[in-house]
C-alpha cells in the first residue's frame, strides 16, 4: 500500500490519521499563529486566528481543530489567510486594553506579540464590552481583569481538563460572556487549588498574580532564573522572576509546556508559597542559645559543633537508636541520600525518614 499524503503550501507530507492541520504544519516547521490553543487542552477554535485555506472548502478551516485527510491541499500563507489573521487581531484588540504599555503592565501579551509578526487590519473603535469582573472576590492570589479578557476560555478549560478542578467557568453569553466562579464567590471559597495555571495559559494577562501586580514591575522587565522547586520530590522546574535592581523575587512562573517535566504546570506551593523568601522573620544566619537561653547569631562552625555535641551526648547516654532523623520534603534527592548516610554511618541508626514518604 502506498503511503497516503497531503500537501501543505505545496510540500507533500505523509498523512497521519487523527492529526490536526496545526500538528501536520509543525512537522514542516510551518508556523500558524494561535491565541486560544494549548497543546495540552482540547481545541475549541474560538479565536479564529488559525484559519487556513483547504481546497474544496468554501470556508477557511481552523487548523487547531480540523483533522487532516489524505490528499488534502492546505494553504497556510495567502492573502486570504493573512487578511483573516489581521482581522482577528484587530477584532481582539477592539475588545481588550489597546494601549500596549498598559496591556503589558504585568504578564506578557500574546496579542501584541502576534500583531508585531502579522500586522493588523487597523485599529477599530474599542467595544467596551459589558463583561463583568468579580469585585467581591477577595482571594489574595489571583486577580481577574475583565477589561482585558478576550474570552478564549483557556483558563476555564485548563482548570477543567488539566487541573480537574473546574473552579471557574464561562458565564453569561454573547458580549456579556465572562469568567466566573459559582455565584461569583472568592476563588478561595471554591474548589480552586490556586495552582495558578489559569494565569499561565491566559494570553492577555487578564488572569494575573495579585502580589506581582501590586509590586508593579512588568514581567518582561524581570529576569527569569530557572530552578527546581524544593517543596517536594517531583522536581518541577520553575522560573523565579527576579527584579535585579531590588534583588527580589517578584513571582514564580512555570517554564513553557513541553520543555520540562512539569509540562507548564505547578501547584500552589511552587507557584505562590514564596513570600517567606523576603519575610522579615526569616532566619538568614545560624543562631545558638547562650547560657541564659537567649538566641544569638553565631558562625556555622559553632552552630554545627553544638549540634554534634548534643546528638553525640544522646547516643552516649541512651544508645544510637534513641535518635531519629526526619528530613524535609524540601530536600533534594541528593540531600536525602546524604541525610540517611549521616544517620546510618555517622550515628549508627536506621531511624531515618523523609516527611513526604507518608
Amino acid at each position, binding site marked *: 500500500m502506498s503511503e497516503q499524503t497531503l500537501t501543505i503550501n505545496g510540500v507533500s507530507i505523509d498523512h497521519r490519521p487523527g492529526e490536526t492541520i496545526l500538528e501536520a504544519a509543525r512537522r514542516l516547521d510551518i508556523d500558524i499563529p494561535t491565541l486560544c490553543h494549548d497543546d495540552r487542552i482540547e481545541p475549541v477554535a474560538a479565536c479564529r486566528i488559525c484559519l487556513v485555506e483547504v481546497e474544496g472548502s468554501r470556508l477557511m478551516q481552523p487548523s487547531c481543530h480540523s483533522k487532516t485527510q489524505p490528499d488534502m491541499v492546505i494553504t497556510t500563507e495567502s492573502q486570504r489567510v493573512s487578511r483573516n489573521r489581521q482581522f482577528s487581531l484587530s477584532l481582539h484588540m477592539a475588545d481588550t486594553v489597546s494601549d500596549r504599555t498598559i496591556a503589558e503592565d504585568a504578564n506578557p501579551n500574546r496579542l501584541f506579540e502576534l500583531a508585531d509578526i502579522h500586522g493588523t487590519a487597523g485599529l477599530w*473603535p474599542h467595544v467596551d464590552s459589558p463583561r463583568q469582573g468579580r469585585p467581591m472576590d477577595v482571594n489574595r492570589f489571583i486577580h481577574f481583569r475583565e477589561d482585558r479578557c478576550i474570552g478564549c476560555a483557556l483558563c476555564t478549560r485548563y482548570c477543567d481538563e488539566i487541573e480537574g478542578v473546574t473552579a471557574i467557568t464561562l458565564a453569561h*453569553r454573547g458580549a456579556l460572556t465572562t469568567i466566573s466562579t459559582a455565584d461569583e464567590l472568592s476563588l478561595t471559597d471554591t474548589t480552586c487549588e490556586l495552582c495558578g495555571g489559569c494565569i499561565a495559559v491566559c494570553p492577555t494577562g487578564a488572569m494575573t498574580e495579585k502580589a506581582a501586580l501590586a509590586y508593579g514591575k512588568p514581567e518582561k522587565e524581570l529576569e527569569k532564573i530557572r530552578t527546581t522547586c524544593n517543596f517536594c520530590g517531583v522536581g518541577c522546574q520553575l522560573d523565579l522572576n527576579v527584579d535585579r535592581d531590588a534583588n527580589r523575587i517578584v513571582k514564580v512562573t512555570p517554564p513553557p509546556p513541553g520543555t520540562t517535566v512539569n509540562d507548564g504546570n505547578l501547584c500552589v506551593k511552587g507557584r505562590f508559597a514564596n513570600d517567606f523568601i523576603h519575610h522579615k522573620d526569616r532566619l538568614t544566619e545560624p543562631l545558638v542559645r547562650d547560657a541564659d537561653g537567649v538566641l544569638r547569631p553565631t558562625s556555622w562552625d559553632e552552630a554545627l559543633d553544638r549540634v554534634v555535641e548534643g546528638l553525640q551526648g544522646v547516643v552516649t547516654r541512651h544508645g544510637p537508636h534513641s535518635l531519629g532523623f526526619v528530613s524535609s520534603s524540601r530536600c533534594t534527592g541528593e540531600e536525602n541520600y546524604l541525610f540517611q548516610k549521616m544517620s546510618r554511618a555517622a550515628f549508627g541508626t536506621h531511624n531515618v525518614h523523609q516527611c513526604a514518604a507518608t
Partner: protein
Amino acid sequence: MTDRRREEVLIRIEHAGGLATGVSNDVHAETGVPEADVYGVATFYSLLKHPSEIRVCQGLSCHLAGSGEKIDAMSATDTPFLAAACLGRCDEAPASWDPQGENPLPEVHLTAASDELAINLAGVDSLSYEGLAAAQDNGADWVIGELEESGVTGRGGAGFPAHIKWRGVANQPVTERYVVLNADEGEPGTFKDREVILKRPHLVVEGLAIAAQALGANDIYCYVRGEFGAVRDTLEAAMEDATTAGALDTATTWHFVDGHGAYICGEETALLESLEGRRGMPRMKPPFPVEAGFRGAPTLIQNVETIATIPSILTRGGAWFRDLGRTEPGTKLYCVSGHVQRPGVYEAPMGISMAELIDMAGGVVGTLKAFSPGGASSGFLPASMINVALDFGSLQKVGSMLGSAGVVVLNDTVDMAEAALVQAVFFEDESCGQCAPCRIGTQLVRQAIERFRRGDSDALEHIAEIAPGMEQGSICGLGQAASLPLLSAMKYFPNEFESSVHT
C-alpha cells in the same frame, strides 16, 4: 453515569426557581456536575437567569408596531421587565410575554384549507396515522426513497435535503440512534412551527414516529421553545392521544424538553449541547449530528415543518409533494408580519413571488419599501425585487436567503439604518459568545450603526473590513449572517447611509 445526570442540570435549575445564590451548589450536589459548571449553564439561558420578569419584544416586527414606545411606557412603571430579542409572536406585534402568565395566542390568519397543501394548517388533524402504517409496511428504504422523490428540504433554515440526513443516520454502523424535533423556533419574524404544532400536532407526532421507525431510534426528543408553553403541552397531549388510540409503537420513548430562552439553541448542535445539559454553544462540524449527535450517537434533527410534511409525502407520494412546488419542491409555510394588512402563516407553492405573498396577506400597509424574506439572517431586499421567487435557490442568488421564511414587510416610513440596528441588537443579544468574530463583531456592528445615527458619518467605514471577516470566520450561521442586515441595507439604500444625522 454523571453524563446522564448532567442532562438534568437545566430542568433542576428551573425547578429550583431559576438562578439564585446557592442553587448551583444544590444542583451540583444532586448531579455531581461541578458547581461552577452549573453556574455557567444557568447564566447562559435567559429564562434561568431571569425566570420571572415580563418580556417585551423588541424584534423587528414589534419594533415596527411600536415596541419602542411600549418599552418606554413600561420603564416609567415599577413593573420589572426585560426587553427581549424576539418572542415568536410577530403576528401580534408589539408582543409581550409573562413567564408566569397564561399568554394566550390570538387566532392567526391562515391559508384556507385545501387538499393541495402539504401541511394544510386549516385542515382537520386526524389520528389515522396512515403514513406511519405505510412506513411500517414498506420499510425504511421505501420511506427514504419517497423522501428523495419528494425533494423535501429542511424547513428550519438551511434547506438541506431531508433524505440525505435520513440515509446518513440509517447507514451508521451503530444501533443507538436518536430523533430530535427542533421546535425552538426563534428566528425573528418566524412563528410557523408554533402554528403547525397548535393546529396539526398529529402531523408532527406521526412524522416523528415515522422517523423513529424508519431509522431504528428508540428515543424521540422534542425540544420546544421555552416561551411556547401551550405549544409543548399540545404536542405532548397529541402524543398521548395517539398512544391511547394505539397508533404509536410503545417501544419508543418520547421526551419533551423545554428550551430556556436562547435563540442559538435553534442551531442544531447548540440544541444538542443544551439537551446534554450544557451551555448552548454550537459544536464544530464535522462531525455532523447524523454521525455523532445526541450523546455522541447518530441523530436525526429536523425542523417541525419538515417533519410535518412527512405523513402526506408517504400517503400521497413523493411525486405529489414535488409537484406542489413551483420553483422547488413542495408547499412552504411563509410567516408574514410587519407592514401588512393580515399578518399570518400562509402556505403556498415553494417559489411564490413576494408580490403574490403580500397579496395573500392582504396587501401592504402604506407603500412597500423593503422586505426581509427569511428572518433577521436574510438581510433586506428592496421593493424593486418584489417579483423574486421565495425559494432557497433564488434568494441565495441575490445574496439573501429563504431561511425560516419569516417574511417581514417594511413600508416607506421605515429608516433602514434603524431597521438594521434592530437586527444588529438581536444578533448581539443572542450570540453565544463562543467565537470572537461573532461576539466582538456583533458589538462593533451595532455600535457603528449607533454612532452613524448619532451623526458620525465615518462610523460605518470599517464595516467593509469587519463584515466579511465575520462571515468567513464565525463558527456558526449566526455570526456568519449577523452583518447581512446592515450590508444589504447599505447596498440597496445607499442614500440612507450617506452622512445624515438621526435622533
